[in-house]
């Protein structure tokens, strides 16, 4: 029975975690850890929230742990005396200067990205990585997973107003990043 539940959610959680973390191994780790925690704490689930919100709240917490650990490691590298690490960290501007096309041809890109078969999907996926963690999380939960604002507020532990703001400015940033592509493809056609 629990297996059925896992089968129902594992793809959704993996997709969301992969979009948030941009790393398939970590996303798989999130899937496993999420279901182990669901199994451990299923007696604590109260039907005040939807079950999917509760599961995604657990998965979101796992993702945030991984992102925090990344930040910690990044900070440690900056403090290290390794001369190899003396290269200046890329600024946000320089990161944006990377064109989406150049990232697509990156040989070190995650193999899972090969699943992004369409050119547009790959463009959007790469642009998504340029958002802040909090913006990307809200965008993924709404526009990919289809949660409502109130559910996202519950999942990420913030107010509906904050969700509204993060989602909007995340989309605005995506629009700026994808503008060249959209102008080629005729934006109004895509929106249909």
């Amino acid at each position, binding site marked *: 029975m629990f297996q059925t539940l896992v089968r129902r959610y594992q793809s959704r959680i993996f997709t969301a975690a992969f979009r948030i973390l941009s790393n398939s191994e970590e996303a798989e780790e999130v899937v496993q850890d999420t279901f*182990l925690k669901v199994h451990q704490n299923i007696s604590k689930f109260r039907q005040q929230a939807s079950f999917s919100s509760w599961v995604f709240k657990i998965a979101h917490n796992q993702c945030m742990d991984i992102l925090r650990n990344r930040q910690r490691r990044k900070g440690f590298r900056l403090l290290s005396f390794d001369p190899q690490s003396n290269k200046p960290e890329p600024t946000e501007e320089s990161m944006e200067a990377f064109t989406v096309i150049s990232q697509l041809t990156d040989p070190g890109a995650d193999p*899972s990205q090969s699943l992004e078969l369409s050119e547009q999907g790959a463009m959007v996926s790469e642009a*998504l990585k340029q958002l802040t963690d909090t913006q990307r999380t809200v965008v993924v939960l709404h526009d990919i997973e289809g949660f409502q604002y109130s559910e996202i507020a519950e999942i990420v532990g913030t107010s509906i107003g904050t969700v509204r703001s993060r989602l909007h400015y995340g*989309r605005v940033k995506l*629009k700026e990043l994808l503008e060249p592509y959209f102008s080629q493809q005729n934006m109004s056609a895509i929106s*249909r």
Partner: protein
Amino acid sequence: MSNDFNCEQLEPLLSAYHDGELNEAERTLAERHLNGCDACQNRLLEIGAVASSLKLLPRLNPKTDVAANIEQLIANQPKSVTKIQRPVIWGAAGIAAAAAVLLVAGNFKIAPNSANSPVTANSNVNQSLPKHEHDPAKSQDLEIAQAPAPGVNPAQQEQSNPAQVAVGNHEHGSTSHGPESKKDPALDQHEKPAADRNAKKNSKFNPHLEVASRGNESSTVTGGTTSGSHLDGSDSQLIANRSGGTGVLGADSNLVAVYDTEQRGVTEELGITTDEDGLYAIKL
């Protein structure tokens, strides 16, 4: 009409308007503005295009079918999941600390009676009281740092069958991450056969360093509280054993470094203590 939205006021609400997440009053005001503003209509179109493009992203599947393995994952899950700390980070810090202490220790003159006395850093525990009053708070800190992970019964650790644990991990070990990788490091040492552990003790690749006064072939700390490190005898790893891979640190330092390669929880066992003779017990 003075309450109508202008473009700046509407801008942050466009996504919510697109998603149908505005309340009735906001939606009415937004629609009123949009009906007369081409710029905001275009803006709304762009927001919609971005949202639509995100919805087109494909659903992805994990490489490993978690559903198929979930029963096994649950069965093999440790009772208390403790995350492994970053051994590289702590190891580097510990090595630096160990090097600093060894330099200091090399300059200390060891008391004459210590040469033939028991060999560990706590050698004088039963012979003389320390000059400085033992700080129970510090001792407690050290003991906590070295205590087994919460929820892990030391007796169970002792009785656990390494072969069984190894087989259990192997059976579902197709992924190297996940909860298996977060198991209590204190349990790891029981997963290896004893012969393997002894072999590793002689290895030079050793993140764990113990320093003790040289004198006897082997001596295990079984009591005392001076150093606050491994004094309860329950995890008496503070052993000076020449046959177990030792190295003399300086010609007259009278110190022996005992190398121990067992992959124990690094941070849990981190402790640097000294007694009145300037003998240091370092555990990384």
